[in-house]
């Protein structure tokens, strides 16, 4: 391991305390970051990760404690102070100028000047050099917005290097990247680590943390739980430390999922040969009452595209869909809703939550849309529905008047689930319901799905976290390259077999 305890930390945060009105966001937290290490900051949403990062980047002033960077005590009044101290941040949402070129973004504010103002030739040369240093080959004159999020993030990192960053904070950098892009990002991170840059890494993906990090600091409820070298903290122990309770819940979910499904009955949904040119090749899928069908495959394998056809979010060009034995037309989401099918999109922000409306309005939207605008749901009925589902799903804070956009991802997901459950669906399609949310909320949502399916609800469950799929589903349909490639019995399949099946070259049917 490149980092050990003897190396002098470049960032020392001691006894950091931050008080917000009514909340002690950070309570006497110590955090040390050493040159040449990748240090993962872990904790549930609300544990204080973002607050700690914002203290380090000068967004929040600290109420107590001291920050020492490169041996000098610092007081950051604004973000520029932190940048001058050599601390740069790359966020989940890239904060660059999409309508400028790559080169302009990399050099923004540091353009070399000639007699006639900015020397653009030199600027682009310089930008290209910084990019090449990170092993990235790009046309620096191309528009930033023409590149994928992954490339944009690499550009953001190059920009940090132009600012001569000694400390690089990567805040959920991988949440919108696919596997290959994550590899590319990690290759850059390893290079930077080798040059002595200290990297603070925040991610909800545990595999990625174990792949890249040297050390882990765990926070819970604004307090420090501890700092551990990665080798001394196995995954189960990390999760236990993050959520502060043992993983009984997950075992409970597995037990609930482990039951026989009656497949003699008429399926709740039967899709035969549904396809859309260039999107999904013809696929067949049956879902029976009370069954959880997992849909596994890499990002872009056609999982999302397939369920969108089932829901009528996009129109299928071929094939038929039967709901409880009767042919059904799915040309619009409303048709699916009339057949008591619900769909929670993987893109919570763009296709799920109505950010400026309250939690209550977000929950009511589903039933209200079905009733039509003329018949407004009576106030008493509204309150009953809202409190029932907020409690059943454990939405926190339990405040229906809160603006939904201000909630954490996990709670937004619970609100969306509440919206759909309030419509009393018979089949619910959940596309990545646990993406980007904290461990505790993930367990809550899985448990809820297990309970509902036990009570007779049919579920199509998509997740990139294959453990979840195997834990919840009775059957797993596997997709690759926009094609359905097979189906596995979840009870008799372990994680390695599933991964191998997804990745295997050529066709093979199993189970």
């Amino acid at each position: 391991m490149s980092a050990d305890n003897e190396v002098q930390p470049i960032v020392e945060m001691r006894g950091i305390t931050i008080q917000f009105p009514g909340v002690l966001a950070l309570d006497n937290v110590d955090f040390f970051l050493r040159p040449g290490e990748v240090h993962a900051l872990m904790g549930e949403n609300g544990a204080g990760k973002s607050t700690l990062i914002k203290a380090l980047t000068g967004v929040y002033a600290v109420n107590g404690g001291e920050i020492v960077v490169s041996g000098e005590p610092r007081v950051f009044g604004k973000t520029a102070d932190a940048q001058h101290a050599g601390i740069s941040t790359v966020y989940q949402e890239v904060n660059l100028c999409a309508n400028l070129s790559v080169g302009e973004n990399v050099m923004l504010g540091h353009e070399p000047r000639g007699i006639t103002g900015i020397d653009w030739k030199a600027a682009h040369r310089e930008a290209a050099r910084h990019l090449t240093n990170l092993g990235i080959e790009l046309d620096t004159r191309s528009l930033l917005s023409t590149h994928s999020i992954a490339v944009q993030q690499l550009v953001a990192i190059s920009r940090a290097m132009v600012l001569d960053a000694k400390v690089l904070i990567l805040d959920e950098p991988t949440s919108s990247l696919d596997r290959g892009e994550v590899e590319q990002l990690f290759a850059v991170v390893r290079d930077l680590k080798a040059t002595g840059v200290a990297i603070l890494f925040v991610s909800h993906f545990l595999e990625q943390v174990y792949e890249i990090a040297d050390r882990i600091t765990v926070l819970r409820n604004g307090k420090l739980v501890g700092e551990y070298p990665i080798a001394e903290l196995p995954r189960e122990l990390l999760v236990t430390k993050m959520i502060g309770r043992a993983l009984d819940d997950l075992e409970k979910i597995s037990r609930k999922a482990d039951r026989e499904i009656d497949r003699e009955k008429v399926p709740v949904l039967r899709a035969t040969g549904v396809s859309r040119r260039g999107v999904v090749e013809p696929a067949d899928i049956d879902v029976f009452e009370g069954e959880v069908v997992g849909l596994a495959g890499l990002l872009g394998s056609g999982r999302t595209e397939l369920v969108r056809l089932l829901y009528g979010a996009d129109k299928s060009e071929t094939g038929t869909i039967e709901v409880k034995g009767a042919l059904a037309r799915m040309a619009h989401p409303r048709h699916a809703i009339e057949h008591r099918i619900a769909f929670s999109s993987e893109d919570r922000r763009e296709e799920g939550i109505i950010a400026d409306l309250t939690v209550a309005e977000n929950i009511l939207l589903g039933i209200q849309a079905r009733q039509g605008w003329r018949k407004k749901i009576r106030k008493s009925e509204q309150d009953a529905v809202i409190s029932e589902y907020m409690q059943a799903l454990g939405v926190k804070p339990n405040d229906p008047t809160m603006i939904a956009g201000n909630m954490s991802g996990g709670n937004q997901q619970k609100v969306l689930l509440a919206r759909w459950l309030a419509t009393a669906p018979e089949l619910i399609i959940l596309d990545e319901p646990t993406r980007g949310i904290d461990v505790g909320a993930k367990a809550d949502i899985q448990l809820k799905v297990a309970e509902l399916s036990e009570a007779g609800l049919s579920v199509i469950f998509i997740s990139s976290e294959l453990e979840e799929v195997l834990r919840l589903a009775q059957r797993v349909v596997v997709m690759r390259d926009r094609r359905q490639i097979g189906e596995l019995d979840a009870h008799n399949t372990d994680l390695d077999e599933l991964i191998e099946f997804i990745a295997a070259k050529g066709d093979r049917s199993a189970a």
Partner: protein
Amino acid sequence: MREFVSRVTRHRLFWPVAALVALIAINAIAQPRFLKITIRDGQMYGALIDVMRNSAPLMLVALGMTIVIATRGIDLSVGAIIAVSGAVALTIIDGSDTPDAVPTVLIAVAAAILVSLILGVWNGFLVSTLGIQPIIATLVLMLAGRGIALLITDGFITTVNSDPYKWIATGYVVFLPVAFLIAMAAVAVVSLVERRTALGMLTEAVGINPEASRLAGVRSRGIVMGAYIASGVLAGIAGIIVAGNTSAADANNAGLFIELYAILAVVLGGTSLMGGKFSIAGTVIGVLIVTTLDSTIVFLGVAPARSPVFFAFAVILVVLLQSPAVHRFARKFKTSKPSSVDEDTPTKAEVSA
């Protein structure tokens, strides 16, 4: 007390109301007769009554604009619809043998509203069915509409002599101007429809996040279509009033630039151009601000040549007064001088407006 004051100042309508009150106060200080209302022959007279009557067309147009903006749209064609509506109504009356008969006027009004409704459907079709950007879709009618109005009036300014028609714009019922009562009735109807049904919430949902709303099963196409129809019909009613004011249908000048004033009023009332959350009460206040400002110019005797500059200057002040950035600055200024009291800043700002 402190908490009460902060609750009041944080209300979304506080700054629009403050701006309106400040504007009226300035007028009253400059010319105390501004506030004077006299009753003669069952009719109220005075500068404030004039503001009410003059505000009617803008009120109607801004009302529709609020709903359209809430869906993330914009309706630039309202001025043109005003011209068409007036042209239709007056041409019918002009062609009738009995221009003074109430049935003639009723037919003219109904026809004008029907035509406006069709124009609203056209806008709604372009935006919701064909998916054309609202600013472009309504620009079509903004440019073509006045041409249609000219065709209807044959290129002339049609004038009529019809007392029942004139009454719509200049008459009185229970001491108040009919035009103002029509506008208020429209405000009441639209508010009731939006808030007593679920239309308001669904409109906001579509405006904030169209795709999420579609996936939630909202009939967003119908909601957007309805907004443009409402805007068209309300502009049509405004057109009837505008034509009634002068008993003339001027295809080139009726409702000229009213779309811009309507957008201004909606924004002053606190509805964001980004769509989503809207406030009808805010729009009413916004319209009253714009109309009061207009009559302030007349009342203070600002020379016509200078009045656009005066108007622009006043609008900038009102917008600054409402700007969160200015509020933050004021708060900072206040905290750096701990001796000043809490209520200090708003008062200061009001006087400066």
